[in-house]
């Protein structure tokens, strides 16, 4: 008998949960409690696996694809996920998130994270208000300055919003290792709650300075591009999952790669993006079971780098 493929496992996972989608979200008990981490500045717990929307939720007004995104959100919430991250840069993603939230009757567990992305500080508040309207929410939990664009203009306004009770957390973002020096400077000087950076088994620049600094300064870390926009998954998927992955309960490459990220003590939340229900379930469930220790993390990184 041949070994089950990843597709077989996902299909079985989807079949096992398919019935769940026939009933309202509120009718379900969570099948397991996801691993959580505390946001250092508040102590609030957050599940370590969130949901990104870059590319995957930018589906315009296509009703079929919007419903697929809604199904992904529904599975995400049902599995215990909370943080959804988007940006005005992501095309129609905010509207699609808003559409899904409306269909799902705005789950109370939602932790809404968005960004301000505009070159003019004066236009920041209007963009934030438009984003809020697209999400269809009362207020954001977290607003981040996207890719540090005009950060010195936006950051004071976001911090003022937080002081005024119109926002709960403030952060900054970058991706693909860009402007880490500036990110470090802001982390040292400004009272931010979150920093969002790229991190995965191959892109490990943040391990040397950003992640330790986040721990020192009590700043929560959101990790984007955990699969290098899918290219890392496509690359490793050509190889057999190592047998030792079972030691940490990883049943797929996606779970092994996510466990590598979320096992770093500085990481608060990772935000993989997907359009498929089986994948979002697989992603959230990567936070269950044993986590790799330092030796296993090194083994994962070395193995992936050698593929």
């Amino acid at each position, binding site marked *: 008998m041949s070994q089950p493929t990843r597709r077989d496992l996902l299909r079985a996972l989807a079949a096992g949960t398919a019935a769940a989608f026939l009933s309202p979200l509120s009718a379900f008990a969570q099948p397991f409690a996801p691993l959580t981490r505390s946001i250092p500045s508040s102590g609030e717990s957050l599940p370590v696996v969130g949901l990104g929307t870059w*590319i*995957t939720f*930018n*589906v*315009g*007004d*296509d009703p*079929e*694809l919007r419903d697929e995104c809604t199904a992904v959100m529904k599975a995400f919430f049902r599995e215990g996920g909370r943080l959804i991250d988007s940006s005005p*840069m*992501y*095309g*129609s993603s905010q509207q699609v998130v808003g559409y899904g939230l409306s269909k799902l009757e705005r789950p109370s567990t939602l932790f809404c994270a968005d960004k301000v992305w505009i070159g003019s500080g004066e236009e920041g508040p209007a963009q934030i208000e438009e984003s809020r309207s697209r999400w269809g929410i009362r207020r954001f939990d977290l607003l981040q300055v996207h890719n540090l664009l005009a950060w010195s203009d936006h950051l004071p306004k976001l911090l003022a919003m937080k002081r005024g009770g119109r926002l709960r957390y403030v952060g900054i973002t970058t991706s*693909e*290792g*860009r*402007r880490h020096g500036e990110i470090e400077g802001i982390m040292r000087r400004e009272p931010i709650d979150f920093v969002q950076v790229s991190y995965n088994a191959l892109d490990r620049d943040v391990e040397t300075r950003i992640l330790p600094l986040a721990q020192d300064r009590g700043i929560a870390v959101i990790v984007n591009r955990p699969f290098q*926009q899918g290219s890392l998954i496509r690359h490793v998927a050509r190889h057999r999952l190592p047998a030792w992955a079972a030691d940490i309960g990883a049943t797929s490459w996606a779970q092994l790669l996510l466990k590598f990220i979320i096992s770093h003590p500085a990481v608060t939340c990772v935000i993989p993006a997907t*359009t498929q229900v089986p994948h979002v379930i697989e992603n959230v469930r990567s936070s269950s079971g044993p986590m790799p220790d330092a030796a296993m993390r090194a083994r994962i990184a070395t193995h992936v780098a050698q593929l």
Partner: protein
Amino acid sequence: MPEWWSYGLSDFLLFSPRTYYRLIERYNETVWPLHLLAAGLGLAIAMVLRRPTAARSRAVFATVALLWIWVSWSFVWNRYATINWAASYLVWLPLIEAGLLLWLGAMSGRLTLVRRAGVWGYAGIATFLVGLVLYPMFAPMLGRGLSQAEVFGVMPEPTAVATLGVLLLTEGSPRWLAVVPMVLWCLTAGATLYAMRSAEAWLPAAAAILALAGLRARAIAAT
């Protein structure tokens, strides 16, 4: 843009290939059967390219300009911009092209079609036919189905390729001006398709390079 060297084409791609091709499919469903009208106009232009006259030239430029206005509004602005905010800026390229063709070709007659023999004459006809006949075949040939076919006068890429074919057969110094928006569109489209790993990514860029090479060769030959 800081650290610009660290950006790749994929960093600027906002949507998935599936979303893009479904957008085309849904657009085709909405505007059908305008494809037949556009194809008919394309065939008429192809006939004129073989035997152009001054009056027919003006008609060709006016027709291509009006098709660009239609494509800009119906697809680029109303559909494409819903998944790519950059399209709300890029839409100026085909609109400028439409304005140039109307002004320089249809109204003032500073651009005229000529019957051209030789390599670049055939290249002009061939490029136009690639946009009119070959481009719509890519979707079915590449397994995306006829419902996602990109048709001249309905979608921007085949219209841009065909327009470059027309400009290869055009006399008048402002043709250099008219070719710029199409070259920029084709290069942008080629880069987008390349980032999407689409097999036809090379074609718009190749048409742009061919048009520039053709116009340059004619300029050299004329001196």
